[in-house]
């Protein structure tokens, strides 16, 4: 600081006038040490920001290189096929397109992809209305001394490890659902196309619906907190105006607040979807990780993430390395879906979180 005294003393006729508005230029101060400090800051920060990029390139390269043989052999069958067999572990090795794999190996991931989409969809269908309702209660109705602790509780829910949620889901919540809730649904579900999946038997609580419900509990914090922040950004004047015109709470919510932040809520939902698609450990514990399409909504199933976790160990027994390659293809598919979903969500959210100006020209 002392060395700057001369400059600070000459404020009226400052030589700095022209540099106002630009970043401070240490070279004008002429101190080598300071020059150096800036260089260290810039250099290390640049390295730090390039490292994630390098990690990304590394991860994508590893996945692509590992998955390439599987992509060539499995072809499109991977996406729609229903047969998932490693082939014989002892006998013949066959070469297809120059890629070695055990005889009879056939990988069709339809059941896995189906399980991933179905569980995420159930989670979204449950979580979205709950989150919007809760966000409304938190921002519009409850006083601060209640809504603040409740908001903190939602933040806690976001931080609870998924393995703990899985433990609770498989030991407490799932059995409770299977004992008290599912029978009511199952006994009253009619035998018509979609609702047929809700019919008996309900099982022991380990399955698709339980996993979907628990998954919804895991994405509720994201959607609720984002929606709550969006609601807080809606300026009070349009809402007050609508109330002054005699609109009821429901009408204000339905005609003013929700339209104002609709695309932001869609973004938050897509973000929750991305989280649900990638969830692993809770699905393995509650969903059962059984590789088939369940006969009804209560039965065990599997997802892409759960399959990668449960099969990677066994995949290394395949001497040709083809099973590992197939799992890499699975991981690649999951990464592509998840990243696409995530980027879309971010795009929607960043575009709508700057709604400073009224949308409806109010």
């Amino acid at each position, binding site marked *: 600081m002392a060395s700057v005294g001369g400059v600070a003393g000459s404020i009226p006729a400052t030589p700095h006038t022209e540099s106002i508005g630009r970043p401070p230029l240490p070279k004008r101060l002429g101190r080598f040490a300071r020059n150096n400090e800036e260089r260290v800051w810039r250099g290390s920060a640049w390295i730090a920001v390039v490292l994630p990029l390098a990690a990304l390139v590394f991860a994508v390269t590893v996945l692509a290189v590992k998955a390439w043989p599987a992509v060539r052999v499995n072809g499109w069958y991977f996406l729609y096929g229903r047969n998932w067999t490693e082939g014989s572990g002892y006998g013949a090795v066959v070469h297809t397109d120059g890629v070695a794999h055990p005889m009879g190996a056939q990988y069709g991931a339809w059941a896995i992809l189906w399980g991933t989409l179905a569980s995420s969809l159930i989670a979204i269908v449950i979580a979205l209305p709950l989150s919007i309702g809760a966000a409304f209660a938190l921002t519009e109705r409850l006083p601060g001394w209640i809504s603040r602790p409740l908001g903190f509780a939602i933040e806690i829910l976001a931080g609870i490890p998924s*393995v703990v949620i899985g433990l609770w889901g498989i030991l407490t919540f799932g059995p409770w659902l299977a004992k008290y809730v599912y029978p009511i649904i199952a006994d009253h579900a009619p035998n018509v196309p979609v609702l047929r999946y809700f019919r008996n038997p309900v099982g022991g609580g380990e399955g698709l619906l339980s996993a979907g419900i628990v998954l919804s509990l895991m994405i509720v914090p994201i959607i609720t907190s984002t929606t709550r*922040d969006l609601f807080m950004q809606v300026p009070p004047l349009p809402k007050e105006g609508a109330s002054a015109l005699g609109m009821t709470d429901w009408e204000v919510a339905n005609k003013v607040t929700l339209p104002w932040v609709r695309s932001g809520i869609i973004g938050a939902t897509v973000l929750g979807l991305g989280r649900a698609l990638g969830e*692993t450990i809770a699905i393995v514990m509650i969903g059962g990780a059984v590789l088939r399409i369940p006969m009804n909504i209560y039965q065990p199933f599997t997802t892409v993430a759960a399959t990668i976790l449960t099969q990677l160990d066994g995949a290394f027994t395949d001497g040709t390395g083809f099973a590992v390659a197939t799992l890499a293809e699975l991981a690649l598919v999951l990464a592509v879906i998840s990243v696409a979903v*995530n980027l879309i969500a*971010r795009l929607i959210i960043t575009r709508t979180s700057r709604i400073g100006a009224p949308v409806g020209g109010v």
Partner: protein
Amino acid sequence: MASTSLSAGPGTRRRRVSTITWRVLTYVALVLIMGPAAWLLLGVLARALPHWHWSVLWTTLTPTGGGLRDQILGTLILMLGVFIVAGTIGVLAGIHLAELARPRRRSGKASGGPLRTASDILAGFPSIVLGYVGYVALVVGLGWGFSLLPAVIILSIMVIPYIAKTTENSLRQVPTGYREGAEALGMSMGYGLRKVILKSALPGIVTGLLLALAIACGETAPLIYTAGFAPTLPHSLTHAQFPYLTYVVYQYYNAPEANYHYLAFDAALILVVIVLLLLVSSRIIVSRTQRHSESARGTRSKRRWRRQPLDLTDLPR
């Protein structure tokens, strides 16, 4: 005339019903979220407490039961590793994005476009995919074996985007006046960054770090394939499987021996306590330092009263 049509109009009854229904439904939604959340926390307590022994904290895992000392220490060491690696890289990356990268002249958009996009893409990677990459590339490919080093690297990659994001956001909330003041006093860029800007952005940065640590300590899927599992702490960074708590929960809850069940419940309780401590301290930091964070963009009066929420939107998982 008007008042009669308002009070007895054709839609009045329907509107009143719809309003009451709406209010009730919002509360029901809140209860349906809070109920299971409370049940979850109490359930963990209820399972762990009946068989809780404090000795769990200082005895080691044995084939017949024992305690979780090394698993707890292992989780703490993992968190420390993530704190050092991801904390350094993430905070520096956030500084770069917020302060150092030059904004694009023409579009006037935020700086660091491609790097930010890379960070966003990385944030979208499911943790199991990162775990797979770690297993294939680091554990098997580089021959490190299940050990601490690949685990810390993979966990760090997972949380770096989040730390960078929260750091950037809290730096952007430092009022422009602080920067101008630092400049007007003739501070060099590095000095001003250290003494003025980072200082006032510190609470936000620490909050992001704590949340990232909370996520890192609760992670299971990528650890299973990078750290492996061991009953006791190893003496080496590589080639030695590493103990941590989440594995105990995942594997022991349906083990044949009842003692192992209790260990799983204890591990779950300890995890919840660690996460709660991290979240509560981040919440305290946020509420203690509300004065500092004020939007730099001129909408001060509107924003000042807004309670700064923790950034859950980008939490890694």
